[in-house]
């Protein structure tokens, strides 16, 4: 049961299981590589549009092959390893950041008819899911992999034997560890609702009929609505920070750190970092779509090829987030380091923690059928705690500020 809950592995046909699994792995791998190629082109083109420029337009129609040309160029460039570097770690680091980026995509359901058939697809006469693996630990795998990706960046900077990469990697470890907390807390809010770690079950839970707006307009049962937007916003911001994307790209801030952790990298090793970075953008968007926007779940107008609509909905939602990430990059200036830490520790973590407690209380209230009096009591206690905690936090912040001023003067 290495690959988890997929019905494919309940059957007693090991050859078919193996072949279908290999097929899914190959397709996912190729899909992700092509997607990264198109994503880099898309980002450059869209950022150009937002700058009144034209962007790449020479290689292929609309410059769509520009990434391929750049990749070939990088592949044939001289590969440099600095004398002062730790050679083994220096060579290892790009793979440490690339492989987690690949693996996370394996748990994302990208298609299937979730409304009528619970996401099960018939492939060559066998029932299976349209995702490479649906492990029991599900979304925890994503957290584990995104923690692993920190090592790639941190070790790259450390092993370069050069000061700017080192500064970049120090920033990277601090930033990614801080934001992982907020990311995890926002994630727990989703898990409270879906009551499952499996990404397939999370997507399936969001395919059911959702709450109704004013009792009339039916809304999708997306976790975005069910958990009340706050975990979504926290996850989106913390996810952007986790990706080291603008405005959180302090790790590779060109104006401050040359290139940050990848300053000393060249040729194919640099290309691997570049690949991993953009692959992370795609997988993070896919994870957000799965967690908050119902993944491939959506209306299926035509029976029979319902799984194709699943893929369509998934990619539409994915495009939305890819566009958003590029839009962020074109709009926001980079945060200062202290602003980054303030946002993470003083805003995102308290908010996601408080919201998590609120959601948990709401679930308990529903389960035990609380009376109005109990709800008012719980709300009162909660509000009181909130006020006390906020004032304690504020006191701590102002004390810290005062201390800082002392040190300066």
């Amino acid at each position: 049961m290495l690959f988890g809950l997929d019905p494919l592995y309940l059957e007693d046909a090991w050859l078919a299981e193996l072949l279908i699994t290999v097929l899914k792995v190959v397709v996912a791998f190729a899909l992700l590589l092509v997607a990264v190629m198109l994503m880099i082109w898309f980002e450059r083109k869209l950022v150009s549009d937002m700058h009144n420029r034209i962007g790449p337009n020479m290689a292929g129609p609309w410059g769509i092959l520009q990434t391929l040309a750049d990749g070939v160029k990088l592949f044939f460039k001289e590969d440099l390893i600095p004398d002062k570097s730790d050679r083994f770690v220096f060579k290892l680091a790009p793979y440490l950041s690339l492989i987690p980026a690949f693996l996370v995509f394996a748990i994302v359901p990208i298609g299937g008819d979730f409304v009528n058939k619970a996401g099960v697809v018939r492939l060559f006469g066998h029932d299976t899911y349209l995702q490479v693996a649906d492990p029991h630990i599900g979304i925890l795998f994503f957290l584990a992999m995104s923690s692993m990706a920190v090592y790639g960046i941190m070790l790259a900077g450390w092993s370069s034997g050069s000061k700017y990469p080192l500064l970049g990697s120090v920033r990277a470890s601090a930033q990614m560890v801080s934001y992982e907390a907020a990311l995890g807390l926002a994630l727990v809010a989703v898990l409270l609702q879906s009551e499952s770690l499996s990404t397939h079950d999370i997507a399936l839970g969001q395919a059911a009929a959702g709450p109704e707006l004013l009792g009339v307009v039916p809304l999708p049962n997306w976790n975005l609505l069910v958990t009340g937007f706050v975990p979504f916003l926290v996850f989106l911001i913390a996810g952007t920070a986790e990706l080291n994307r603008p405005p959180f790209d302090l790790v590779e801030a060109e104006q401050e750190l040359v290139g940050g952790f990848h300053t000393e990298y060249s040729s194919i090793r640099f290309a691997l970092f570049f690949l991993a970075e953009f692959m992370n953008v795609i997988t993070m968007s896919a994870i957000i779509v799965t967690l908050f926007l119902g993944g491939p779940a959506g209306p299926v107008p035509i029976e029979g090829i319902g799984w194709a609509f699943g893929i369509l909905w998934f990619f539409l939602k994915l495009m939305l987030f890819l566009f958003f990430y590029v839009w962020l990059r074109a709009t926001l200036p980079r945060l200062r380091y202290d602003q980054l830490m303030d946002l993470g520790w003083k805003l995102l973590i308290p908010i996601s923690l408080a919201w998590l407690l609120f959601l948990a209380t709401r679930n308990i209230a529903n389960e035990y059928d609380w009376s109005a009096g109990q709800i008012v009591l719980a709300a009162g206690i909660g509000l009181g705690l909130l006020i006390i905690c906020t004032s304690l936090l504020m006191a701590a912040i102002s004390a810290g500020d005062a201390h800082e001023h002392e040190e300066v003067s």
Partner: protein
Amino acid sequence: MGVLDYLRGFRVTFDKLFEERVTTEYPEEKSPKPDRLHGRHVLNRYEDGMEKCIGCELCAGVCPAKCIYVRGQDNPLDEPVSPGERFGYIYEINYLRCIHCDLCVEACPTQAITETKLFEFSFTNRSDAIYTKDELLVGDDGLPQNLPWEDWRPGEDVATSAWMRATSPAGDADYVGTVGWSGELGYGVRAPEVGQFGEDPEPPAAEVDPVDEGGHH
């Protein structure tokens, strides 16, 4: 500065999507060049085909980049190359050094050397970067030679001595609008351009401050 003001930036970048692009797609499409752009040099001839260069080496002397190499020689008596006593029999400009400052043009007493508006030329080795007299000299029609490695566009070979004709050769404002230069092969005596005072070809003399005028000399 509220949250909404912060979000207004997103509106700005989104609106840009539908605005006109400012990019000039350079090799295919070129912006018009300024009239007095400093490009590669030409060596001019008089209307009768005689070379203007007298081999005095003032251009080489004034060149801050030391990119001009000139050697003069006495004109052959039976077949003179230039109207005077001497002519430049070697004239070389190294375009890897030239900074196109036009000091040679200003130094030249006979307006032999001027600049075109051509800058799109390239070489694959250092010796090709040195233009010799054969390449710099204007052709029989008085126009610069279009050498195979140069990317000439219409209009780059006209008004080659634009800066010279703006005022007098000596740069004295008193001579604005006064022809003080020799004729050229293919053009004759070129008319003066509008001077530096703007659209009016004959600025009122009263506006010239006598004190400032004195400063020129």
